[in-house]
């Protein structure tokens, strides 16, 4: 089929072609476009083009919006050392499509490259024949910051030293070329799966009709490769994903990769070094760790041996790996392969080491440590890409043609001062692919990251990878830090596959063991429970107070005034927000909804979100769409003084939250800490609200209305009314309210009910001691009922009860959430210098 004739809709190809031809960003022309060839749409894209035509410009923009909404619902983020600065993952709805044969060739080249890099890595940390023989100049490696001398002599048990091999590739007219190798701690596999799930939902029909290789197999292979890497043959080796924490740029990727692999995500504080071994804390105990999938860069991984100021690493980690107690994947020091200077030597290395010709080519590279190469670079600096041999995030590659004369001069001086730290590379003609924008389709420079995993017999590659195109900020710098967009990559199989496989988020491996519950995870779950409940309680209180305020506008009168005043004063003491009647109660209530100080709903939601990020991979994926909705509602409420509808929506979100927690959390220790937090928070709220609201005795009509407000704030008003109607409650409304909210076992909102659940939670968490105390208090409260105490007596004892509840929270903290003491480095100074007299 000739694609050319059929897809000549002007919006689709002509304008796009004009834009392609018109590209002038300094790179060599002509540009290869992934989508559009000289004869029209390329064959692999035929079905997509047909679909695009059917969708039209509007449909494509709608798809773009839908993709953005899914990203937000899944909380896919990138970047930022601060959670509030993290940006959304950006996705273009149009996939990159790679044909079957083309992929097969690319994979063969990648396989060869991974074998070669593996051999180099293995040599560099042992015999260093390649350096001694001059196949790699020692200067290129020995002074490189990622050549970790402390890791010298360490070998993983199996044949493979480079287990994970990721590669950034671009395509020019002649085929795929390597832009850089990612061997330090390759990121992105989780983003690939996240992006796949989103794009295939948006283009569901097309994806179903297209025979695309799926990704799940890769995670399965990776999981077993990691288990096989265990230093000793254990039935079920303990593998952990070692993350630098939620402030990391790729925190989403780390957590989702861990989920896909079925291994727990841990941080430095979850690990302990003991007797030269690495252990992970689990409840009150320690479990030996066999394999660490390392997402912490080498320099930060072991503060004893490397950067002593790192708080992301474990002191002694290198020693544990040297002693063969733990396998680190990729091993410490693997980042040395990211040195772009190696490219200059790979063709010869391939012949010497593998006895093969290098299949996949790098851009032609001149290493400035070599005199002739340096002269070439300095003479041709305007047309080359200049790279330091050590990539630090702050030092982006320089494009020679972009340099001002002052910049060029500075760069030349730097190259001359330390020539071995610089390379010049030929500028490749990087291919483009179409991106959906408001102006229509726009060609953008495109990079593909592939992912390989090495096992004894060879390397296996993910069928596809992470496609990225330049963002609007820079024409050809494809980096997430400059706003690059992700593209799903479809590798055509030419055979029918089960397309549903990649859409269901199930761990690639059966866990085989209960999830780890480190003090950090337990504590975050506990506070997740508390903050969710606190935000909900506060939101409800705001709704009630606002109702009362509105009523008061109509009713006036002393009773209405007293009720409003009592509730507002309770509100103030519970939330810490002054909201007195004389001033502007509505303003204060609005502030308490959207404000950022402690006690506000928005502040609790922020703390809740922070805690959720810390325990991302034990939570249901639905959590994120609920949190994202909640954030959107708060944003709307910020802009709108009429906040009643927003606070209602917030309450609905929490209803959804309770549903998710009740329906999709396994009833294990994980759940027990989350629920314990929620129970303590609700009991505290109920007790404190009663204490404050009923602090002053009221006349009957006011008392009755106040009681109803408190009952409504505790979600027990309907029950109360039914009981009254049934004639169950006689006497003053206050007595009945206290009874219903404190010790009515059939009211699921009563304090007694919270204690019953709390005790069960604590037993599930293995804390029989505190559970017994909670049960004892529960019986005491239940027993008090038989003595028919007066309301004054009961109210008098509430502050004691509140203290008791707070005490448990502190005790749980001490008993279960104990962290390490702070870590400090001792770097000796010039302590014993001597001059011989």
């Amino acid at each position: 089929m000739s694609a050319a004739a059929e897809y000549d809709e002007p919006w689709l190809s002509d304008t796009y072609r004009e834009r392609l031809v018109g590209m002038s960003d300094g790179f060599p022309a002509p540009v290869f476009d992934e989508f559009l060839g000289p004869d029209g749409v390329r064959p692999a894209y035929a079905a997509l083009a047909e679909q695009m035509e059917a969708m039209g410009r509007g449909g494509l923009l709608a798809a773009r919006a839908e993709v953005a909404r899914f990203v937000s619902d899944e909380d896919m983020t990138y970047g930022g050392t601060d959670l509030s600065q993290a940006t959304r993952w950006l996705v273009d709805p149009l996939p990159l499509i790679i044909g079957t044969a083309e992929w097969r060739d690319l994979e063969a080249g990648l396989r060869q490259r991974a074998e070669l890099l593996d051999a180099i890595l293995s040599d560099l940390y042992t015999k260093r024949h390649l350096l001694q023989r001059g196949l790699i100049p020692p200067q290129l490696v020995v002074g490189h910051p990622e050549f970790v001398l402390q890791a010298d002599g360490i070998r993983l048990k199996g044949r493979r030293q480079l287990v994970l091999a990721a590669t950034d590739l671009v395509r020019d007219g002649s085929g795929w070329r390597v832009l850089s190798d990612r061997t330090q701690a390759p990121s992105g596999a989780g983003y690939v799966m996240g992006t796949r799930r989103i794009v295939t939902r948006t283009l569901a029909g097309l994806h179903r009709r297209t025979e695309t290789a799926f990704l799940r197999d890769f995670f399965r292979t990776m999981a077993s490769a990691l288990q096989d890497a265990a230093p000793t043959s254990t039935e079920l080796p303990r593998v952990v994903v070692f993350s630098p924490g939620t402030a990391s740029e790729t925190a989403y990727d780390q957590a989702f990769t861990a989920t896909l692999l079925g291994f727990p995500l841990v941080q430095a504080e979850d690990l302990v070094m003991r007797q030269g071994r690495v252990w992970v804390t689990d409840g009150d105990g320690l479990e030996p760790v066999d394999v660490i999938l390392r997402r912490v860069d080498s320099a930060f991984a072991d503060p004893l041996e490397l950067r002593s100021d790192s708080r992301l690493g474990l002191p002694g980690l290198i020693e544990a790996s040297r002693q063969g107690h733990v396998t680190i994947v990729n091993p410490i020091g693997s980042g040395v392969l990211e040195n772009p200077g190696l490219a200059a030597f790979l063709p010869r290395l391939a012949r010497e080491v593998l006895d093969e010709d290098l299949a996949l080519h790098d851009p032609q590279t001149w290493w400035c440590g070599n005199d002739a190469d340096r002269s070439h670079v300095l003479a041709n600096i305007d047309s080359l890409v200049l790279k330091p041999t050590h990539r630090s995030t702050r030092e982006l590659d320089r494009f020679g043609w972009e340099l001002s004369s002052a910049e060029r001069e500075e760069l030349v001086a730097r190259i001359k001062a330390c020539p071995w730290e610089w390379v010049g590379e030929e500028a490749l003609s990087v291919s483009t692919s179409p991106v959906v924008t408001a102006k229509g389709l726009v060609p953008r420079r495109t990079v593909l990251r592939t992912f390989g995993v090495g096992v004894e017999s060879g390397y296996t590659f993910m069928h596809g990878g992470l496609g990225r195109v330049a963002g609007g900020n820079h024409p050809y710098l494809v980096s997430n830090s400059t706003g690059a967009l992700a593209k799903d990559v479809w590798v055509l199989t030419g055979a029918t596959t089960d397309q549903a496989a990649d859409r269901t988020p199930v761990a690639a491996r059966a866990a085989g063991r209960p999830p780890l519950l480190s003090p950090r995870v337990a504590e975050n779950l506990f506070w997740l429970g508390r903050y969710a409940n606190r935000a909900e309680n506060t939101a409800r209180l705001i709704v009630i107070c606002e109702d009362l305020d509105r009523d008061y506008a109509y009713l006036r009168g002393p009773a209405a005034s007293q009720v409003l005043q009592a509730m507002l004063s309770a509100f103030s003491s519970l939330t810490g927000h002054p909201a007195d009647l004389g001033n502007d109660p509505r303003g204060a209530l609005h502030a308490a909804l959207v404000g950022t100080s402690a006690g506000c709903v928005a502040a609790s939601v922020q703390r809740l979100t922070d805690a959720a990020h810390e325990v991302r991979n034990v939570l249901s994926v639905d959590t994120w769409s609920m949190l994202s909705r909640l954030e959107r509602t708060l944003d709307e409420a910020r802009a709108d003084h009429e906040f009643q509808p927003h606070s209602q929506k917030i309450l609905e979100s929490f209803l959804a939250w309770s549903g998710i927690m009740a329906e999709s959390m396994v009833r294990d220790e994980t759940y027990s800490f989350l629920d314990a937090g929620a129970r303590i928070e609700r009991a505290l709220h109920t007790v404190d609200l009663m204490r404050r609201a009923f602090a002053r005795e009221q006349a009957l009509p006011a008392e009755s209305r106040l009681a109803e407000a408190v009952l409504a704030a505790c979600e027990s008003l309907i029950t109360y009314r039914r009981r009254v109607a049934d004639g169950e409650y006689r006497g003053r409304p206050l007595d009945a309210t206290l009874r219903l909210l404190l010790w009515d076992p059939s009211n699921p909102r009563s304090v007694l009910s919270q204690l019953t659940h709390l005790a069960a939670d604590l037993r599930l968490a293995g804390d029989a001691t505190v559970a017994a105390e909670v049960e004892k208090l529960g019986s005491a409260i239940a027993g008090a009922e038989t003595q028919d105490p007066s309301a004054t007596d009961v109210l008098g004892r509430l502050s004691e009860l509140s203290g008791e509840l707070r005490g448990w929270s502190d005790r749980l903290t001490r008993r279960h959430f104990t962290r390490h003491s702070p870590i400090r480095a001792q770097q000796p100074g010039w302590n014993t210098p001597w001059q011989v007299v």
Partner: protein
Amino acid sequence: MSAEHDTPRTYLVRHRTVYTYDGTVDAAYERGFLRHRDTDYQTVLEHRIVVEPEPDALSEHVDFFGNHSYYVEVLTDHSVLEVSEFANIRVERTPVDLGSLNRWTVASAAAEIAESSELDAVERTAFLLPSDLVELAPAVSAYAEPILGPDRPLGDAVEGLIHAIYRDFRYEQGVTSVRTSLPELLDLRAGVCQDFAHLAVGCLRSVGLPARYVSGHVETSPPPGGEKLEGSDASHAWAGVLTPTGLWVDLDPTNDHLVDSRYLTTAWGRDFRDVSPLKGVIYTEAKESTLKVGVDVIRLPESDDPPPPPQ
């Protein structure tokens, strides 16, 4: 240099490091060079390490540079940590004839080393490149230039370097730290042995001669007529330079002479960072710590009997 310091001898070395904290330390992880190297001029006859409290792990490996590196783990709660090394070491250095090095000039030696296929290319490179504490800044080259001019005979140049640093720099404790860079040192014109060793290494590297930082101990003499005080000997640092034959020449610019048989080599590396005697990471609420190091280098009487075991 008198021949009395070149005679073969045996030393007993005691090196004690004591950390004292103002609170409890829950766990301490340490890495240190707690054993002297065996070299062609020095043999460790006996060796013992004592860690107090009893360590939970103590292991040793030979590092990239061939040094004995120790990992120590103490998980017992403690407020004092003591790490001691005891060793009997036999030393017999052959005096270096600087005059014989004069058959090369600085430039010809550098060129011969660079092209040699006999020398270890990795080692040669490691000791030629700048390192964290040996920045090859223009100021360093400028200082080295008149001393290590390309046409100067190698032996004279090395001797000139020792004298120049001794002459130009005041020995003064407390003016420099582990973070002082060579340009800063060149401004200060004062420092301690570690600084002078770094500067010598930097000057040699800047003219293309591979040079290393050596850490160890030196026997000191009691003040005239006085008793030698316990713990009064010292950790010391000096520089080593590679010559075209593969011979390393050790020089002590702090004391204005070549290294002789009073010097005991613990470890060498590119600079202090590679061979820091003992460094650690601790878990503690304590805010303050004090560090005390006591060193004794005791020359044992020569006899036909085997030397007494270290205690």
